[in-house]
């Protein structure tokens, strides 16, 4: 499945400044692996050493938080949007 990963501003420096990266993947895990293959080093920003998504980052598949779906095993349809949503604190 061709899917698009929406990259937040804080992580764009790891993907050559792009706001969206197109990858292949049947589920979120494969999509993130595809992202890592295309831009080595980014997965460590998203997941801990055990491969779990870090708790200050949320991954959304079609506007749903994957924690409330099948987590990294959440399957993706052709053209799905995966959005990475990190906690941001700025305000002043």
């Amino acid at each position: 499945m061709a899917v698009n990963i929406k990259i937040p501003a804080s992580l764009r420096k790891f993907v050559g400044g792009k706001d969206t990266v197109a990858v292949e993947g049947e589920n979120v895990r494969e999509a993130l692996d595809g992202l890592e293959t295309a831009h080595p080093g980014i997965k460590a920003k998203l997941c801990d050493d055990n491969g779990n998504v870090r708790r200050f980052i949320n991954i959304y598949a079609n506007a749903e938080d994957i924690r409330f779906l099948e987590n990294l095993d959440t399957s993706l349809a052709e053209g799905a949007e995966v959005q990475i949503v990190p906690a941001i604190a700025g305000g002043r």
Partner: protein
Amino acid sequence: MSLSFTDYLAQVKGQIREISVQELREGQSDPALTIIDVREPEEHENGVIEGSELCPRGYLELRVENIQPERDKPIAILCQGGTRSALAAHSIMNLGYTDVTSVRGGMGAWSRAGYPIEQRRRLSKEDLARYSRQIILPQLGEAGQQKLLDAKVLLVGAGGLGSPTALYLAAGGVGTLGIIDNDIVDTSNLQRQVLHTEELEGTPKVESAVATLKRINSSINIKTYNERLSSANVMEIFKGYDVVVDGTDNFPTRYLINDACVMLDIPNVHGSIYHFDGQATIFNHAEGPCYRCLYPEPPPPELAPSCAEAGVLGAICGVVGTIQAVETVKLLTGIGDTLEGRLVSFDALDMSFRELKVRRDPNCLVCSPDPEITELIDYEQFCAVTF
């Protein structure tokens, strides 16, 4: 042939449906029923029926479509004795309203029956003029403006986000605005913190905020707290506010605000920005999620640079801060669908707004039914920040 008024009234009453005050009392709790009180403003001084729309007879045809745009929804019309309401009911039936009734005996009969009467304050002439452009909105009206004037909103941070929020809430007539910030105005703030001006560089932000806001609206109360929000002062400061608006710039304070709002049961209107990105939502409202449901843990400090380190486009603050102002007004007046359970994720570079679902975490450390955290903690330590 001309009719006497008595004949005309009898003819009108033959064409409309009347209900008793008992029937009105029973229908009062039905949200589908619109009650329109067509008496003159001075007649309202002795009280009105709770939930009724006040619209003098002379304005009824002009305004009824704003009060109830749907022609087939039930409307009960009320005056003092039941005569003007009969004529009014007849008139709006001519406009195509199909389910209209006139209350027999009107407000007099309602009072004699001993049914509850609400004292509704009238806005002053000055307030009616000042807020006329929003009072005219049928969803808001005079009653909504009165709610704003009675409301108490606390802004945490008078910076990038707090500036636009404060400007609009003050201008819109939120009666009491609290502002907490312990910073002073610096040249580097002026690019985005639009509450502050060159003349007041070097003065505390809360003082600068008051100076600006009073020039916009001198009729509201502004309470300032020139201190840093902490576990020691948060409960005392938050108590009594209807809404807290989070416009701070660091994770420890965001978790502190969240936990205090959960413990005190105050809605938390959240906004945050970074580079060209923004996020906005409402936490701790209407059984919705809290900040910890969305982000159980803060990022480590090396991954959480402040605006000073990371940079921010000034106008982004306006986009997110005004979303917070709009949501605050909606919360206070009860209009529209507020943002709880939905995160607006804004990217200025491609100018996209995405709406993401935020669910309540059944295992949330602070807002679950059996929470692990029931007292404020050390938030600097929690976020591993060294000051």
